[in-house]
């Protein structure tokens, strides 16, 4: 609790990530201080055209060569950039797929800036933020040496409409053609192309997007893998999901799903076009499906080939956390940083209608005990806000004083229930029937009992969990969910989770909040063209929702916490997607 307060307060004084340089290990890497699990709040800003020019700034002490081993707990569901939407696929994919924009991370300070990747800058807007123009750099080539052109970027966007592309983000398609975008255009395989009035490629290096409404954060959307070119002659449709064609510094040498991927150098990649990727290692050996706690033990032991091992995405096994935090041998090779995910307990507002009752639940909520059960501060810091620390505009306010009473304040909860005239309140808590949530259910039940709330627990089969809580007629009052920002703007947090007009079965508005003021504010803020102003207004709306509607109880700002092998340098962290940044790594 104190750690979060201290860290958050520090953010307002120091510039984002500025403190990381002070506790970086030799070689320009990133690490934590003696506290180990302390994370810093990071703010991503838009870079200028000069930031987008390649090559990437050299990492002090880095050298070319060697093989980096990446150990990941789970496999990759998708490699097709149109299908990629989770951070492990984004992080690994950034080695062989380039996007119009991307995040550039300074290896000395850890400061993160959005820059043009394939594009010369983060985009020029016109028409009040509806039209966005991108110019491609010269010298961009595919792995077979063929030049990358704007029509291939347009083709990549057209593929997003195809009937088999169902797992990726839908921002570009819906911004261009509305929510029922497949009815407007079925994809490029019938011989039709998107009209120039939506996406135009007037010359080989210019691509122009004409959105239906202003979208100030289009530069961030262009950093998603969906905004990458595809070479039509190499498009194998569904097969592209196993073997995409590379335009990054590495190409896929071999891939066995769920098992292993070997990446080798792509000779056609020109570092002078790339402001982000240093690409020091000769090869990447990505080992998938490595179970815990073995994965963490291998990184801790750092023996043999694991000397050059890292886990871009998989956090440390919670049972190993105390050893990592106290072992001097791990100091200087431990990373502890915030991820874009905020874990919440959702209150079903269509059943718990009185906001005073919802606030009583908030006061009674034992966030500290739950944090400990889920692995302690190394896994996540106590959260008091719906917007996480990686999102621009984050403010560490605490309207319910949860940091002062992290175990819950049953007296205040009882007082609110009395005010609401509620006696013998009986609620149902639904949870996925796994060990960790069974433990949480017991803790929650006891805490609610102290506040006079009779909490009935309902275990749900883990595979059915989201299907059942996603039903608008579900019969549960409280359930756990969580959300990660797609980019560091709350436009990817508040509208998908709290816009009451989107409420339907299987939607992500799990709280069923329907506040007309919130809905109209979402429309108004979405149209603000200045991102700084927009961020401040999202924060105000988030604070209003939490204080006034209390549809969710935030409890953890998730963290990435892991050690890496002793043979690696240049380890930086990408706060926008919440993974180790693979582009600056080198083998010592």
């Amino acid at each position, binding site marked *: 609790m104190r750690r979060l307060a201290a860290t958050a307060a520090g953010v307002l004084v120091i510039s984002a990530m500025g403190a990381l340089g002070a506790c970086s290990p030799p070689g320009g890497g990133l690490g934590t201080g003696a506290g180990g699990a302390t994370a810093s709040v990071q703010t991503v800003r838009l870079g200028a055209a000069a930031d987008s020019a390649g090559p990437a700034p050299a990492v002090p002490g880095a050298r070319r060569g060697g093989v980096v081993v990446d150990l990941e707990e789970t496999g990759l569901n998708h490699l097709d950039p149109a299908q990629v*939407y989770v951070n492990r696929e984004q992080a690994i994919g950034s080695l062989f797929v380039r996007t119009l924009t991307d995040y550039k991370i300074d290896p000395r300070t850890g400061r993160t800036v959005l820059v043009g990747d394939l594009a010369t800058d983060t985009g020029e807007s016109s028409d009040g933020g509806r039209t966005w123009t991108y110019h491609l750099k010269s010298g961009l080539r595919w792995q077979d040496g063929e030049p990358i052109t704007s029509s291939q970027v347009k083709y990549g966007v057209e593929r997003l409409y195809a009937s088999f592309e169902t797992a990726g*983000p839908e921002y570009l398609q819906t911004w261009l053609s509305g929510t029922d975008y497949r009815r407007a255009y079925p994809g490029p395989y019938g011989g039709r192309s998107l009209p120039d009035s939506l996406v135009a490629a007037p010359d080989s290096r210019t691509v122009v997007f004409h959105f239906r409404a202003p979208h100030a954060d289009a530069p961030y959307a262009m950093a998603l893998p969906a905004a990458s070119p595809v070479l039509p002659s190499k498009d194998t449709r*569904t097969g592209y999901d196993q073997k995409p064609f590379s335009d990054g510094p590495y190409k896929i040498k071999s891939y066995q799903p769920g098992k*292993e991927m070997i990446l080798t150098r792509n000779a056609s990649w020109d570092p002078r076009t790339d402001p982000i990727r240093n690409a020091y290692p000769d090869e990447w050996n990505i080992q998938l499906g490595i*179970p815990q706690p073995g994965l963490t033990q291998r990184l801790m032991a750092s*023996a043999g080939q694991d000397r050059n091992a890292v886990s871009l995405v998989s956090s440390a096994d919670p049972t190993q956390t105390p050893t990592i935090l106290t072992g001097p041998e791990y100091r200087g090779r431990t990373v502890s940083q915030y991820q874009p995910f905020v874990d919440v307990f959702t209150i079903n507002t269509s059943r718990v209608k009185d906001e005073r009752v919802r606030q009583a639940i908030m006061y009674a909520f034992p966030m500290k005990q739950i944090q400990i059960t889920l692995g302690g501060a190394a896994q996540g810091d106590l959260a008091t806000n719906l917007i996480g620390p990686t999102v621009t505009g984050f403010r560490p306010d605490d309207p319910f004083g949860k940091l002062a009473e992290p175990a819950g304040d049953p007296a205040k909860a009882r007082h609110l229930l009395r005010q609401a005239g509620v006696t013998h309140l009986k609620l149902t808590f639904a949870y996925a029937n796994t060990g960790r949530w069974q433990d949480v259910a017991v803790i929650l039940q006891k805490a609610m009992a102290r506040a006079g709330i009779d909490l009935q627990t309902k275990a749900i089969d883990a*595979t059915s969990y989201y299907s059942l809580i996603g039903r608008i007629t579900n019969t549960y009052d409280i359930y756990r969910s969580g959300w990660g920002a797609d980019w560091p703007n709350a436009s990817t947090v508040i509208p998908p989770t709290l816009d009451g007009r989107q409420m339907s079965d*299987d939607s992500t508005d799990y709280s069923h909040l329907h506040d007309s003021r919130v809905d109209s504010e979402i429309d108004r803020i979405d149209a603000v063209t200045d991102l700084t102003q927009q961020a401040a207004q999202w924060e105000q709306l988030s604070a209003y929702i939490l204080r006034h509607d209390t549809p969710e109880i935030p409890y953890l700002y998730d963290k990435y916490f892991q050690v890496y092998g002793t043979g690696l340098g240049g380890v930086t962290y990408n706060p926008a997607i919440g993974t180790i940044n693979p582009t600056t790594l080198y083998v010592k």
Partner: protein
Amino acid sequence: MLRFLVRRMLGAVVILLLISAITYLLFFTLPSDPALLSCGKNCSPQNVTLIHKNLGLDQPVPVQYGEYMAGILFGRHLPLGTCPAPCFGLSFAGNMPIWEIIKSRYPTTLSLAIGGAAAFLTIGVGLGLISAWRQGKPIDKIAGSVSLMGQSVQIYFIGPLAIYLFADTLGWTDPGHDPDWSHGPAGSISGLILPCLVMSVIFWSNYSRQTRSLMVEQLAEDHVRTARAKGMSAAYVFFRYALRGAMGPIVTIFGIDLGSILGGAIITESTFGLHGLGQLAVSAVTQTDLPLEMGVMLFSAAAIVLFNVLIDASYAVIDPRVRLS
């Protein structure tokens, strides 16, 4: 003999059909929607509808089951692509045919099963025979204690311990990795030694105790005593008469054990980071890849049923009376 085998095979087919029907019903009539599980983070209702169509989930459950079973025999044409026979459907991960994934994992499981079975059969039966031969003597007591210890420990305990001791500290063996027989046997065998030996511990303890108990029982039988009275050597009687009588139950247990290992040795594979069927089953569950879960489960069930048929056939060889029944 042929009639015997045909009868057993038909029984196995019926059992597999029943397993498939029950499994299918369990998976696809759960409240969970496979389309939702396959869809992306911010899944729109339009995408859910499209995935239903792509996966054939817009059909009634009996029709889906019929098409699924027909796909195993003849292959299927799905909106996402062709799935050649035996088609167990497409995985949510990359829409890959499940049979392709199982095929890529099976060399690891098969290698582990063969190596492990060789180890536990040799060590377990060997220890049991020594105990029975020298019953009541110190070596019998030592073998009994070792077996009891082996039965008391678990792979997830001795596995990491063995890796730490033999691989990390002493450097005698490889800590375990997937075999790649296309690059020569040496590397593959070195990566399998520790997993096979560790896995064998919990099995050979059981075999040792079973073998000893069966052999002691057999050695007390009238026909064994008669053979000894006729002047046959102790060793000849031990192996020719007593061991043959004890083999039936040992083969039964061996068939069941081998069948279940061939269906995936989940704990061994997880402990040593091997990518076999067991690890595939775990990752299918953790990633809620329902078609993959179902495919692995059916394949494992088929392995167990097939080995039971083989055991029945081997009975007929070991004990001619079985053919008459």
